[in-house]
């Protein structure tokens, strides 16, 4: 019954790995973001606010600071795209999950399996597929011009819309599973009771079903929002590198631009955004608990 020490030894490897490869390195990110860019890439441990300054200002001809919104624009676009992705995923997932939850027996199992399946396919392959569909002479362009509906539609790529399609496609399974779980848990008698008390379909949907499924929706929203915020593949392939998101900006600083401190600073901003979402979520949960207590 008592495993002396197992509580300690069993947890140790996992905690140690997380400490060494995540917690300490995150500290290093913060330190590096306040240090100076090295002469040949990399960085020197000399305190500097240069990287954070660079987020807002660029240095002009005569060393004066000019407000430059180019990075703010990227941060803004990232937040907007991640939020829109989350909203669209929710709008798609809820009805689909509801439909699946209402099926019976084998059909339900099969549909649930089919919904999860694409998520297991390599992300890069799934995003690449949209390249073939949306690209010039791609499936849509090719089909439409062959049918003579539109001639020379050209490429549908390299805009926010294309990125959004890819982002939603990448992360929708992360939303549908928690939403499905919360609908599945819903007691059907509650829906019947609402109708029995003269609530119509839509009134029941908004007053009974949706509020009860809120925990699942919130969980799904967090699961989708976090990776969307850090998306790299979708903007690279579907945004064509011109419409950058924060993930690309970070990757570039550690790649060809070789400005590690600035890359670290953008990573710190990204962590800040994630933290803000988590704190808001925790506050919401705490308030809810206070209400029910």
């Amino acid at each position, binding site marked *: 019954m008592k495993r002396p020490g197992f509580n300690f030894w069993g947890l140790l490897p996992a905690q140690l790995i997380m400490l060494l490869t995540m917690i300490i390195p995150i500290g290093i990110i913060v330190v590096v973001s306040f240090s100076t860019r090295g002469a040949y890439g990399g960085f020197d441990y000399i305190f500097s606010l240069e990287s954070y300054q660079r987020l807002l200002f660029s240095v002009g001809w005569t060393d004066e600071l000019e407000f430059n919104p180019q990075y703010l624009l990227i941060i803004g676009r990232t937040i907007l795209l991640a939020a829109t992705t989350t909203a669209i995923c929710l709008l798609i997932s809820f009805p689909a999950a509801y*439909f699946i939850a209402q099926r019976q027996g084998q059909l339900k199992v099969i549909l649930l399996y089919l919904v999860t399946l694409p998520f297991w396919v390599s992300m890069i392959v799934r995003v*690449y597929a949209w390249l073939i569909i949306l690209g010039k002479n791609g499936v849509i362009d090719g089909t439409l011009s062959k049918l003579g509906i539109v001639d020379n539609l050209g490429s549908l790529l390299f805009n926010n819309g294309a990125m959004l399609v890819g982002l939603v496609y990448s992360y929708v399974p992360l939303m549908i599973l928690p939403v499905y779980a919360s609908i599945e848990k819903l007691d059907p008698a509650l829906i019947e009771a609402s109708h029995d008390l003269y609530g119509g379909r839509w009134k029941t949907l908004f007053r009974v079903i949706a509020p009860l499924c809120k925990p699942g929706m919130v969980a799904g929203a967090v699961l989708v929002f976090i990776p969307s915020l850090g998306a790299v593949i979708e903007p690279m392939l579907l945004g064509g590198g011109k419409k950058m998101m924060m993930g690309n900006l*970070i990757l570039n600083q550690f790649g060809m631009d070789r400005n590690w401190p600035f890359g670290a600073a953008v990573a710190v901003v990204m962590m800040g955004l994630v933290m803000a979402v988590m704190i808001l979520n925790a506050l919401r949960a705490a308030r809810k608990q206070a209400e029910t207590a």
Partner: protein
Amino acid sequence: MGGAKTDVKRYPGLGLFVVLFFFYLYLPIAVVVFFSFNASKLASIWGGFSMRWYESALQNDALLDAVKTSLTVATVASLVATTVALMAALVLVRGKGVKFRKTSETIVNLPLFLPEVVLAVAVLLLFSNIGLQQGVTKLIIAHTTFCIPFAFLPIRARLQGMTLDLEEAAQDLYAGPWTTFRKVTLPTIAPGVFAGAMLAFVISMDDFITSVMLNAGGATTLPVYIFSLIRSGVSPELNAISTLIILVSLVLASIALALQRRS
């Protein structure tokens, strides 16, 4: 069926919506598979049926190298991650009087709360600080880290679903802690352990961001190689490679999902 219209749980148009949703989910996969059999050199204009791109894909040494690297990394990372996650889950679900249980669990799941690109930067800075050069080793360490929560969650779910009285019954019937674990706990949670290992394996195989960030070491993983192919232009061979990947993923996913379902 006359009752369908009065069924309170039905919403008009929902069926059509779901059909469109599944179309959206599977169209990209179908397109890739379809054009992989294209005889034409153009990736998205049909020029007749051919298997030639599969032949050239299977003779592509760079591709095979990338597959080998990815398989090595994914196998080692998922095995280590599953072992570590299993131990952690046993303590966090079954351990008595564990201190800081909530915090410990958050730490084990930490990679889920951060965008992967941040994690990639973190390990990059770590390795540059300790001066680790060996590419595959770097990948294995990084992949193990972010695979742990994916292995942990199915195992934890399975353990939580297992009532305590089976283990108590084993102890009642004179089984010591190790016998209880080996003969009762492990067989009962085995589907969760397999599902966790499989999930970790697929997540590692699929990883692009961390691998591309650490790429300097010279070890190219499969997604990084595919990315370089996409960069150099869409080709039917790429479709063939993608189709093979889709095939393998679907088989693995089916096994994992079937295991998770079996109770």
